[in-house]
């Protein structure tokens, strides 16, 4: 065990953790909006609209995240028409390709989490609102959405942790995130065990923080 290497690689890995956190937070925010949007579409009575939303979540939950990143990064890069379009400004950058893949992926899972949360709301809550003469729009935003968010907290906490680990795939499209830098250090020192232990420890610590944050929120908003 090379302790010196573990100590010297720690600050470099910590620095790379910033990229990991940036990827995670940006894709989670985008994914939450996508998830909420598609969850609402799923609840729509129109079969075309809810089948469309179902199709989206089916495709992105049914294929590996790695395949999705490769299709968006290497696949779309091979289409000449795209390369000459304005979209190339975004797709040219590995960072945005990773963000797009992560956001679409977590969006699909989030839409399922939120949909099931909406469906578990007891009709009594909505009926109570109606009997007080509250508009259904306001019932939705003031009653259904807050309850759904509280209901989905445990499952969504899981999704954040899964996504944190998913960001390690960014290293496959040349991004120097925590895993990318760990691999880089290994490529010059040839000592994978030491470096991956440190990197794994950092991931574990982040998971610990996320886990406790969600636990805190669950307690705070319990009813």
């Amino acid at each position, binding site marked *: 065990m090379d302790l010196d290497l573990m100590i010297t690689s720690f600050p470099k890995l910590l620095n790379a953790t910033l990229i990991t956190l940036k990827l995670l937070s940006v894709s989670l925010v985008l994914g939450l909006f996508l998830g909420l949007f598609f969850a609402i579409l799923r609840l729509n009575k129109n079969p075309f609209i809810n089948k469309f939303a179902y199709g989206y979540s089916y495709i992105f939950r049914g294929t590996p995240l790695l395949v999705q990143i490769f299709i968006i990064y*290497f696949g779309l*890069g*091979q289409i000449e028409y795209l*390369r000459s379009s304005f979209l*190339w400004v975004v797709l*040219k950058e*590995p960072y945005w390709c990773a963000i797009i893949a992560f956001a679409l992926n977590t969006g699909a899972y989030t839409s399922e989490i939120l949909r099931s949360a909406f469906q578990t709301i007891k009709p009594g809550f909505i009926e109570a609102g109606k009997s007080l003469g509250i508009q259904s729009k306001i019932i939705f935003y003031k009653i259904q959405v807050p309850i759904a968010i509280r209901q989905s907290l445990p499952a969504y906490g899981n999704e954040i942790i899964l996504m944190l680990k998913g960001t390690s795939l960014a290293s*496959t499209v*040349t991004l120097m995130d925590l895993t990318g830098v760990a*691999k*880089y250090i*290994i*490529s*010059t020192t*040839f*000592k*994978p065990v030491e470096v991956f232990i440190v990197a794994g420890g950092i991931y574990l610590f982040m998971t610990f923080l996320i886990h406790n944050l969600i636990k805190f929120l669950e307690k705070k908003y319990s009813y």
Partner: protein
Amino acid sequence: MNIIKKFSLGLLLSLFLTISANADKIRIGTEGAYPPWNSKDASGKLIGFEVELAWTLCRYIGQQCEIVEQDWDGMIPALIMRKFDAIMAGMSITAERQKAISFSQGYADEVASLAVMKGSDLEGIDTSEGINLTKKTGAVKKDLKTLTSALAGKTVCTQTATIHQNFLESGDVGKINVRTYKTQDEVNLDLTSGRCDVALAAAVAFTDYAEKSGKSVVLVGPTFSGGAFGNGVGVGIRKDDTELLNAFNRAIDKARKNGDISRIATKWFGFDASM
């Protein structure tokens, strides 16, 4: 419960048998993604210069061999952790790698080159044909200076953990924007997509790709050798495995004398890259 016990015992036994059956074979690790050095054919079989050379060397050593596939970025750690006993994967002999493993004498050598897509503004870059970085003469320094200004602000792509990456990060061509990939295939893909302005690898890796894909990839600038580019390609072997190292050295001597290396090299490279 009994069935599960019996089943797992049988599984353990078969595992043990496969391990012991492999004990006297020399296992050689290769990447299988760096044509023409080593690659795979359409059916997934390992082919290439080093695969054919490996079988030849094994014949001279007089022992059974097995060729094992391993991702490039884990090649040296896998050797050290005894997943196989020797590396034949276009791996150049460098001082940095020699800190971790031993190398046999070199069996082949081949220059590195930059490549761009046809029509790039780097195409007409004015340097000598080839530079050797071991002796940094005035002419070499002048070429490096030309390259430094030509590459400034460009995205230069290369495979990770290679001599090419070492050179790009050595500061010889200034501070440039280097992007690294897991395989040479991915470098080629991003060179053609335009995400990379220019790429660095073994010159044959680009000519082979251009020929097979029909894409207009062209070599530019000088060819590189010496210095960060190492001293030829050799067989990588664990440091404590001197017996195997000697066996490979003797086999390479014989194969060279009988003309096997240059024959196989000419077949795969189109020129004699043996040394």
